[in-house]
């Protein structure tokens, strides 16, 4: 990011500290979810997936996600299928072309990167597809353990 100082450029080779100026609070599957991101398109995509905007800033969210945009890569992210890996603590989603998302079952923390050609746009088709995969896979994992045990 241009806003990074030169020191950041040296020590932020993994893009860990890209500023995330947008924050959305939602209700989803009965849980409070906070999503921080650097693109409004991610928040709009979440709303499209059934995340209900929820303005109660006093309430601490059980689930906190950070989603960072990647510049466009080739081939298009949408050409790549989602691959899911699960261990006892984490869910990892690989969605090709630099896109991924990881979720920690115990802490509720999640983070990932999504390809959005124009991060300034308010909507993006690939962001919708990305959020759709996350909602589906994480949603499955948030079901009672007895249902989830078929995977483990």
């Amino acid at each position, binding site marked *: 990011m241009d806003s990074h100082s030169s020191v950041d450029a040296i020590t932020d080779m*993994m893009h860990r500290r890209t500023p995330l100026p947008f924050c959305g609070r939602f209700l989803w599957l009965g849980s409070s979810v906070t999503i921080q991101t650097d693109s409004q398109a991610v928040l709009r995509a979440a709303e499209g997936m059934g995340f209900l905007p929820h303005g109660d800033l006093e309430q601490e969210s059980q689930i906190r996600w950070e989603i960072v945009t990647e510049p466009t890569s080739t081939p298009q992210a949408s050409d*790549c299928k989602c691959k899911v890996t699960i*261990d006892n603590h*984490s869910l*990892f989603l690989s969605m090709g072309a630099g896109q991924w998302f*990881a979720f920690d079952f115990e802490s509720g*923390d999640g983070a990932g990167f999504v390809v959005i050609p124009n991060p300034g746009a308010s909507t993006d088709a690939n962001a919708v597809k990305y959020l759709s995969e996350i909602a589906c896979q994480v949603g499955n994992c948030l079901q009672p353990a007895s249902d989830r045990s078929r995977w483990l």
Partner: protein
Amino acid sequence: MTPVAVAETAFDPSSQRLLFAGQPVLFCTNSPKLAMYAQALLPASENDKPPTTPARASITLHVREMDEPCETFPLFRARGNFARIRFTPGDSFWFNLRTREVFGTCSPEMADDGRRWCVHILPAILGILSATIDVAPIHAACLARKGRGVLLAGHSGAGKSTLTIAMARRGHALLSDDWTYLSEEGEPAGLDVQAWGLPVPVKLLPDASFFFPELNAFRADVSLNGEIAYEVFPEECFGVTRSERCQVSTVVLLERGAEPGCNTFRIRRDEAVAHLQAQVEPLEGRLAGCYSKQLEIIESAVGQASCYRFCFNDQPDKAAEALDKALGR
């Protein structure tokens, strides 16, 4: 889509406890080759004794056929408690830094590439894990004589590697030419910071062959950051000795001088500490405590050291001689 559950994969039951910078790490894999590469890089923990402390982190690597052609490589990304790195279309390494667990997969072809594992992949995995197990990686070369260590720190291009080789040829044991790992050791009442190196190749840019003709017997190739460089094992190429660890007694900040010659200046410890700490990647959120600990380890390591700035514009062997003389060695 069928999720791949880590618990379903058939791993070799013989996991290993290995030491990274003095910290025990559990290494599990279904590949005897990967187990061998890890053993070549890291010493075994508590040989022939039952472990007295739990492993600080686990690395689980599984070799299997892969089919993910969509990405560009290498790819290093991290956010919050998570990181993901990839080197080729045939590998993927996931990190949950809160639980200190790494899960990786690679293709059988990649498992055959021992050099790549020892030079790039395992050091990168250990580097990303380091903050969570109280290890501070610092961008500095390290040499030792009689257990007393000299850290040579400087920005890329400052001449760390060439000066390190020249110093090693003068009788210093070499720990590292680029990344040195600091960690505490001992009882809480009397913790002692040790500097550790990994037995990986040194990296020298092509023009180093002007000073070190031994390099002409090797081939320069593309390194991990895209630079063309020689990556050679210093014992083999230069006949120098290596050391695994030492206590830091001297810190030298390197600077390329505008005028020919070499000059050494004593500097304050806090200047050296600030330089080394500025190279560490800040971590936030749940990992903020890990970052604070890394800064503390660096401060402790330099706490009793003599600190210098060395400005040089001379051939490596002459610069090494001048530095040795200035340090009274």
